[in-house]
């Protein structure tokens, strides 16, 4: 059992916390918004109850919740061995957080950035322990996905890789190693695909349902790109495309104005009850 800190109780942090707790790890989930923590616990309970129905194992929701401690203070992470960061894809927020983590955590605590597009080497440079920082790109929904991208930074040590690989093995995740670059492999392709799909809707070439239907029926994908955008979070898609644009300075990564408008309007997808589609909310 590893004592793992999870920072950020959004869609990904909640999934990571659930997955770790389901596999017997002790989890400290930290977010600066108490409402986000309450919502995360409610979501985890529902996901555990639903696990068998969605093709997963039978999960004891009470036991999972008992393995998760929550709070708003980073000080709670003082005794953790690994911290997995899942906050908003925003460089200023990440910069402030890693500086604080570097102070409150033990010197040998490993930091894992579950980022969508920001390079790991750049994040590691925010700390005094770049050898103990690496990236893992978890897929959503985390407990249901069997693999993740495994991204060492320039200075990541072999020991750090071993610690993180062992943790991923313990939750049944295959680690697929890729080199550090903005967006890695998955999001370099996926975010542009979703962005271009949003442009099709924005330009009136097809509505969201039709775009997704093409991917489902013609390509055999289980979900279309705009359903996927709603699952990931429309705001997260926008921020990731913006990071790619900033990192590469290439106009092919220009974000679709529709993604900006939807993000501003709070149409963030499943988590907000409405995105390209409308959903039953938990409230």
């Amino acid at each position: 059992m590893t004592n793992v800190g999870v920072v950020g109780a959004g869609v990904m942090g909640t999934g990571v916390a659930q997955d770790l707790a389901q596999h017997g790890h002790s989890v400290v989930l930290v977010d600066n918004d108490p409402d986000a923590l309450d919502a995360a616990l409610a979501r985890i309970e529902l996901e555990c109850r639903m696990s068998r129905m969605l093709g997963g194992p039978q999960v004891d929701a009470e036991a999972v919740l008992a393995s998760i401690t929550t709070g708003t203070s980073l000080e709670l992470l003082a005794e953790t061995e690994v911290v997995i960061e899942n906050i908003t894809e925003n460089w200023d927020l990440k910069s402030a957080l890693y500086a604080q983590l570097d102070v409150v955590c033990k010197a040998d605590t490993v930091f894992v950035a579950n980022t969508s597009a920001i390079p790991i080497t750049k994040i590691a440079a925010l700390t005094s322990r770049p050898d103990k920082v690496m990236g893992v790109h978890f897929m959503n929904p985390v407990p249901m996905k069997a693999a993740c991208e495994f991204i060492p930074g320039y200075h990541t040590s072999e020991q750090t890789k071993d610690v993180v690989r062992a943790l991923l093995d313990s939750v049944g995740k295959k680690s697929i190693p890729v080199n550090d670059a903005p967006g890695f492999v998955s999001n370099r392709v996926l975010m542009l695909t979703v962005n271009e799909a949003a442009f099709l809707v924005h330009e009136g070439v097809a509505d969201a349902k039709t775009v997704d239907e093409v991917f489902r029926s013609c390509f055999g994908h289980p979900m279309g790109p705009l359903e996927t955008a709603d699952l990931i979070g429309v705001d997260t898609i926008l921020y990731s495309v913006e990071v790619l644009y900033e990192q590469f300075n290439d106009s092919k990564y220009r974000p679709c104005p529709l993604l900006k408008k939807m993000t501003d309007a709070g149409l963030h997808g499943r988590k907000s009850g409405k995105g390209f589609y409308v959903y039953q909310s938990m409230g």
Partner: protein
Amino acid sequence: MSNDARTQIRTFITTKFPDVTFSDEEDIFALGFVNSLFAMELVMFIEKAFGTRIPNEELHLGNFRSVALMADLVARQTSAAVG
């Protein structure tokens, strides 16, 4: 109660999928217009609309495959609550 439950459940589904026609007995998952993630929305909707908490042993896709099966589930929960 059961007819009322059928109406509410059908309305919930057809609001989301206005172009699809299906009977109360048809398997909505087999028809292919919903996926397993929609099952979670169905659970949330039923628990909220009918003020019930579905027990773990009832949380399987077999209970959510059709409007009729979901209405039966609601009837079982509400009668259990009364009894």
